[in-house]
């Protein structure tokens, strides 16, 4: 990761513009520290010497840890997962969100990663819907209603990024509780709060609101940008969510993307349920029709609801006329892998590479690159527990996060060439 370096470049361009008004009341010696944050790119080793942080190994070890924790939940028992999610993302736009401890500012970082998150979320959960809520001046506003189109959310968010006032968890939860109460019972109600502030100014007793959320089965998760707060921890514990605090930008990205895969289903909802869905046909190119979602005439590339024949622009969505859930079959298929995740690969210490018995496999089975580091020093690599094929770290991440199939196992089973799995 280019954590340290990238930040400094960003910081450099920023400095001249807003240093004077933001850091105006700081003394000169303080300013150098607030800007540089030079301590962050160093770490102390066992003998007390300072050395630059080895980002790659660190990143990979974090990734492995996350993978293990995820898969331990998934493989322990075939846990039912909530594939149809109704998620509200709450963005705290209080005074604290304009702090500059993340570069260039907290809110810019949040916006950037929320955008990536929304795209990733729809990629992984094609059947789900997202809505955006902001907190500003102690009041919660609904920025976008629940919907399946990433573009509209992102556009709405980018227009509203001014921060001011206090933050109020209670107001946000009350608002969302009102919205989520109306959704059908097969959907999973979730809230993801990106919280910058260190306090919450509430009009009433927040404990009651938390109990209310718990009663209406809303799973609340919080990602803090500042420090651990008791009330957030309490909220997440009560409602079954996850509470994490971001250390820096890359960590924040990791934490927010952790919320993209579907969480285990809440027990009360785990009853099997039939849902009526329509698989609309794509309209012929060049045909003209009135779009039901934009209320205007559009040319080509739309979908037609199989029940009422209305035209919609994007899938997945709900038909505005008859209320039928419209999806396409690849959407369903893409949700499928969450139920049968691929087992995490075992990490092997590099010394095994020089083992004469295993001389054959010195290349990654995925990308065919050598597993040896430059200078013929053995590097870290991983082994699939089923097919015993070896993979490099990059392929490891690719297989688990995008491909969701192990090339080694697939080629074994069908004795087909590997390439057939890489679409």
């Amino acid at each position: 990761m280019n954590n340290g370096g990238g930040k400094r470049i960003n910081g450099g361009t920023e400095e001249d513009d807003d240093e004077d008004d933001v850091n105006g009341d700081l003394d000169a010696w303080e300013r150098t520290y607030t800007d540089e944050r030079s301590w962050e790119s160093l770490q102390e080793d066992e003998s007390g010497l300072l050395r630059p942080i080895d980002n790659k190994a660190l990143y990979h070890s974090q990734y492995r840890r996350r993978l293990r924790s995820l898969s331990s939940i998934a493989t322990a028992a075939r846990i039912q997962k909530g594939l149809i999610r109704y998620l509200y993302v709450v963005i705290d736009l209080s005074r604290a969100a304009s702090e500059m401890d993340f570069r260039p500012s907290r809110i810019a970082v949040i916006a950037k990663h929320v955008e990536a998150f929304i795209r990733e979320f729809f990629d992984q959960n094609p059947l789900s819907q997202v809505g955006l809520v902001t907190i500003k001046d102690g009041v919660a506003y609904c920025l976008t209603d629940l919907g399946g189109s990433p573009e509209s959310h992102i556009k709405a968010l980018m227009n509203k990024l001014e921060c001011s006032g206090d933050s109020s968890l209670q107001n946000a939860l009350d608002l969302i509780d009102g919205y989520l109460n109306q959704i059908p019972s097969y959907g999973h109600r979730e809230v993801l709060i990106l919280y910058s502030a260190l306090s919450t100014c509430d009009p009433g007793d927040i404990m009651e609101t938390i109990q209310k959320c718990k009663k209406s089965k809303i799973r609340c998760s919080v990602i803090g940008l500042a420090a651990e707060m008791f009330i957030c921890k309490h909220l997440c514990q009560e409602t079954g969510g996850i509470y994490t605090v971001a250390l820096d930008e890359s960590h924040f990205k990791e934490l927010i993307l952790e919320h993209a895969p579907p969480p285990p289903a809440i027990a009360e909802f785990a009853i099997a349920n039939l849902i009526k869905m329509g698989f609309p046909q794509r309209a012929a190119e060049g045909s003209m029709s009135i779009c039901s979602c934009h209320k205007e005439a559009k040319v080509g590339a739309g979908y037609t609801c199989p029940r009422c024949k209305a035209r919609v622009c994007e899938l997945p969505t709900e038909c505005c006329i008859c209320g039928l859930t419209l999806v396409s079959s690849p959407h369903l298929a893409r949700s499928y892998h969450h139920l049968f995740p691929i087992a995490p690969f075992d990490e092997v210490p590099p010394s095994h590479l020089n083992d004469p018995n295993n001389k054959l496999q010195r290349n990654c089975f995925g990308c065919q690159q050598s597993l040896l580091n430059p200078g013929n020093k053995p590097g870290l690599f991983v082994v699939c527990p089923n097919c015993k094929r070896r993979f490099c770290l990059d392929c490891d991440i690719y297989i688990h996060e995008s491909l969701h199939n192990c090339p080694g196992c697939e080629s074994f089973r069908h004795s087909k060439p590997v390439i057939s799995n890489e679409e």
Partner: protein
Amino acid sequence: MKFQIEDVTVYFPYDHIYPEQYSYMIELKRALDAKGHCLLEMPTGTGKTIALLSLITSYSLSKPQSPIKLIYCTRTVHEMEKTLAELKLLHNYQIKHLGPQARILAIGLSSRKNLCVNPTVLAAENRDSVDAGCRKLTASWVRAMAAENPNVPTCQFFENYEKAASAAVLPPGVYTLQDLRAFGKEKGWCPYFLARHMVQFANVVVYSYQYLLDPKVAGIISKEMQKESVVIFDEAHNIDNVCIEALSVSVRRQTLEGATRNLNRISHEIDRFKATDASRLRAEYNRLVEGLALRGNLPITDNWLSNPALPDDILKEAVPGNIRRAEHFLHVLRRLVQYLRGRLETENVEKESPVGFVASISSHAGIDQKALKFCYDRLHSLMLTLEITDTDEFLHIQTICDFATLVGTYGRGFSIIIEPFDERMPHIPDPVLQLSCHDASLAIKPVFDRFQSVVITSGTLSPIDLYPRLLNFHPVVSRSFTMSLTRDCICPMVLTRGSDQLPVSTKFDMRSDPGVVRNYGKLLLEMVSVVPDGIVCFFVSYSYMDGIINTWNDTGILKEIMQHKLVFIETQDVVETTLALDNYRRACDCGRGAVFFSVARGKVAEGIDFDRHYGRLVIMFGVPFQYTLSKILMARLEYLRDTFQIKEGDFLTFDALRQAAQCVGRVIRSKADYGMMIFADKRLLFELLPSSYLIPDMD
């Protein structure tokens, strides 16, 4: 888990043990083997209590031929309950592994206020009136009267307990105060007297410091304890102050006025008795001639006061003739009160040694030392004879007699200081006569002499070599353990300069400097904007806190702080402070965030925990030195220098840093907790810290 330390199999109820707990146990075992006293320091949150309990109970289990008794002294009722709960867990574990032979009897003993189950008595608001309420129902003469006249109220629980007589025993087990109450209610026996009775038979007794250190109470409760006991003083970093307080008395004008009222009432009673039942007074007179030793056959309920001096000396002697008769004794007391009133009239601060004071009493009031020495016992006997039950009304005269006995008994280690007004408010006359004890070893000496092993332990005992000198004993083991941390859960810092590079300190010549006040304000302001939930700030004194908050208010800093967090302030009023604390906790709970301003030697700094989110940061503004111009402190310092060769500066620094460490220690109560500590004073870095004071891992 079960493991071996030398020849002892230790039963430890948890699956894991910290390395420091293990080495703590080894040292403790050595001290027990050597039958000597020991001094052990181990930081809070490392499981001191369970290490102590599990080693000592296992030790006595492994040596069944010489059972030892464990006397565990805690500072507060809350700690007592926690200790007993821990012991219960341990006991269950031992029974599971060893079967019935591991059975022990462990009880907690507290005042009637905490143990009484009689609803009418419990309705009283404070401890003294609960005690008096109990006596009104259980005193022997009240019960004798009730036997004749069924309309006289008695306590049902006590009557049942008396009826059960020797059958009233507790089955083996661990009893917290709550369990005792529940047991008492179920059986209909009085839990307080049952517990007091069972103290002699119990293997483990948990009670407060006072029951051993305060000679007034110790004589009744603890005199039957066997020599083969292990006494533990937990959280004992302030033990010298507890000892001193137990032997110090202060007399104010109100005390003297109250004492006069009490004397009038006693004289009425005497007159009444003379008219109705003169034989009683005569019987008392005869008994006094034979000496107070015969008092032993009085029933236990009447046994409510005892001698503050060393009991052995006095009980062998007969009461001197001039105070044997009730009227004469009363005259002596009246003269004493008159004399004290005269002394309080003074315009200047006076300091006197007890010897000089006694000489002056005997020349001016005609009371000799021996008579003074017997005052306390004589009053006790008189009140029993007069069948006075509402003892809470007679606290004033008891104070006077307590004073007289102490003055009469001790020639050294005390001084009498008369101050006509409080130094901070010289315009308001508030004369006070203080008999202050300077020698902590006086009160604790009987404990060291009597018991085989005394363990003094706490989270902060550094410098560990000072305690044996203060308390005048020779420990066989004195060790200090450091906490092993799996992660960096504390972050102590010393701040010497503000953001404008000016040094900060609460040194006397600097404390009111606007630059220092502003820097402190800016420090706090920056902290409240980055620290979540609760922050605790400690100031060196109430007056300094008031001053600095006023300045912050004027300069607008306070307002800016309030934007981030709510502000709560400790005051000298207990009720107000409790309310503030309550709201502070609520503000932390609901996520609003709060700051608590407190004073380093106040109630909050000593007894209230700010664990977890209630204290993520503690800031110590300045170094909490004692008020060095106080006459009492000066007298004590002088005594320490002359007797124990402890330099004034050393003692003051030790005391200040012990206080500071206590304050900041409030926020970390276990290894799972985390927090930050800031000491904002330049003196800490340059003058005070080079020695290995404070938290061990402070670099």
